[in-house]
Every structure is written in C-alpha cells, then in structure tokens.
C-alpha cells in the first residue's frame, strides 16, 4: 500500500558563533512517517537537507539523556517525541532553555557537571566497613525512600523547566538537588551533614520556590520538586534546633 508522503515543517533555532551574532530560526520541510521521532526528523535534516546542523543524541531510546531540547517551547527528549503530534501545523525546535547555547541545539553542560561533582554523589558509609561484614541489608521500604530519585539520566530537562535556575544560575538546580537527596535518603549513607552544607544554603534547597515544572517534564519520573521541598522542613528544624542538639551547630 503506497503512502502519500507527508511533509512537516520544522523550524530550528540555529546559532553558529563564528557567523551568527545571535540565534535565528531556520525552516526545513521534512518528509515523515507516523513512527518517526523528532530526533529522526533532525537526522533527516542533517543527512539530506543541511549538514551544518549540530545536535546531541546517542541511544535514541530515552535513557542516555543526550537529546533534550525545547520542542514547541516545552523541554522534551527528541527521541521520545513524535513528529505526528505536530502535524500539520509544524513545530519549532530550540536548545534547552536557561542554559547557554554553544551551537545550534547544543547547550553548555559545564555548570551542570561542576555542580554534579560538588554534591558527593556516592555512598559515604556511616562507619568504616570491612568485606567480612558482607552486604548492606535494605528493606523494600528503605529502598523506596530513594529509588525514584536514583532514576535521573542527567538530561537537564528540569533545568530548562526551572525558572529559578534561569533567573539565577548560582542555584544548584532540580536534578542535582534530587541526586543529593537520593544519597541523603539512602539508609546506607552517613554523609547527610556534609551534603547539607550545600543543601541548607541559599544555593541549595532554599533556591527553590516550588514551581514544580521540573517534575512535570522529567522523562523518568524523578520528581525533583519533591526531593527538594521535603528537605525544607528538615532544614528549618535543623536551623532552629542546631544550638540545642549535639553536633547540630555545624557552620
């Protein structure tokens, strides 16, 4: 059965620092089938229409976190979004919001990576442990306390969603604070005090104003809004009781 070829118009925000003063939209007419993702549309553009288009991708199955971009103004993974949803009106594709554009659809990830390293994203044991002691034991409920927050694929859609990060890049941001919470909430971990030196600062949990859009856009259901805002209560309790609890008054 022959299918009449459908064409969709994709408007891409281009930016090449060597020739562009500022980003500019460029339109491409892309033939597509109903099973094609936006990523495949971009690959068609690069392969047949305009080889200069730059964008990141890898797994094309929503697990590597490389292909995040603004699709019709919303942060999405391009491999998980389908061209048929935008037919016949067409769609726009831009680099993730709130992050500096390096080139075309690629954003600068330096800030994210630096912050990721700063939160000690690894188990800090409560006390030194020998091999003879064997594995840590954890109940399903103990694992439930942190499991969803461990699903982060570092795609940065939540940063594109977070206006507080856009207004103030010093804010640690949703994804990384969710990861900070993932380790704090793990029953095997004893590094809460160290991580909360960042968490309890203005750049930590308190930079969040509970917009909640981060959790809406997360492709993995991490719910960074919950990770951050549940810590405001214990930060406040710690703030008021630190002078009367043993070892409470850190810095």
């Amino acid at each position, binding site marked *: 059965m022959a299918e009449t070829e459908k064409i969709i118009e994709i408007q891409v925000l281009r930016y090449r620092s060597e020739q562009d003063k500022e980003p500019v939209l460029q339109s491409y007419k892309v033939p597509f089938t109903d099973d094609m993702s936006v990523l495949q549309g971009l690959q068609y553009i690069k392969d047949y229409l305009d080889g200069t288009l730059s964008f990141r991708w890898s797994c094309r199955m929503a697990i590597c976190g490389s292909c995040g971009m603004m699709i019709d103004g919303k942060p999405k993974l391009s491999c998980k979004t389908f061209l048929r949803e935008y037919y016949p009106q067409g769609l726009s594709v831009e680099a993730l919001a709130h992050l500096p554009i390096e080139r075309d659809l690629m954003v600068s990830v330096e800030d994210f990576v630096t912050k990721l390293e700063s939160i000690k994203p690894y188990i800090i044991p409560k006390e030194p442990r020998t091999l003879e002691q064997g594995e840590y034991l954890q109940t399903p409920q103990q694992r439930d306390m942190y499991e969803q927050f461990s699903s982060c694929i570092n795609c940065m859609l939540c940063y594109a969603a977070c206006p507080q990060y856009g207004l103030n890049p010093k804010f640690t941001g949703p994804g990384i604070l969710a990861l900070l919470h993932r380790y704090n909430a793990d029953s095997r971990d004893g590094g809460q005090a160290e991580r909360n030196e960042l968490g309890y*600062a*203005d750049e*930590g949990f308190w930079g969040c104003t509970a917009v909640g859009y981060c959790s809406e856009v997360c492709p993995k259901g991490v719910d960074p809004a919950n990770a951050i805002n549940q810590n405001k209560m214990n930060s406040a309790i710690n703030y008021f009781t630190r002078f009367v609890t043993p070892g409470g008054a850190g810095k």
Partner: protein
Amino acid sequence: MKRSNEPIFWSLFGAGGMLAALIGPALVLITGIAVPFGLVFSPDTMSYAHMLAFSQHWAGKIFVLAVIALFMWHAAHRIHILLHDFGVHAVTAVRVLCYGGAFAGTVIAAYTLMTIKA
C-alpha cells in the same frame, strides 16, 4: 557554603499560608460580606461592644494577632519572591520593604491589642 536564613521567613510563610488555607475563606466571608450586609449573620456580630470584648479576652488577642501577623508574614515572603521572579534586582530594598512591612504590621497589631481599653 553559608547556611541560609530562609527558614525564619519560610516558617512564618508556612504558618500564615496554612492558617489562610484552613480558615481564610470563612474569615473573609464573615468580616467582609455576611456581617456587614446582614446575610445569615446579624450586623451586630461585629459591633464595637462585641469586638472590644473579643479583643479584651486573651484568646481573642492571640487569635487577632495570629491572623493579622501571620497573613502579613505569609504575604511578605511570597511578594518578595514574586518581585524576584519579575526581575526586580534590588534584593536588599525588596527584603526591607516586604519583611519590614510585615514587621511593622505585627508591631502595630500587638501594640494595639496590648493597650486596648481594658
């Protein structure tokens, strides 16, 4: 990193917000609509004699102070964030305006309640 002082303002914001969420609609209905216009409630409910008696009682004083002060601290914190969200950059001025206003309102309310005709 320096520990944030937000917990102070956030706690007041939370208390005020919770109070407003729980009884705000009823208070507005009573004081602004029902009583002044005699709907279901007699306009007499908020007469000088009644309100004076209410404010002379220790429980009445606490209630009035809690409502006025906590609503103001709740609003101050949110408005401070709102101005930041709208791109107003004068951080110190905004804080002084918002929290200073709530503080002034609290002081005026407390003073009035403490010195009200016994």
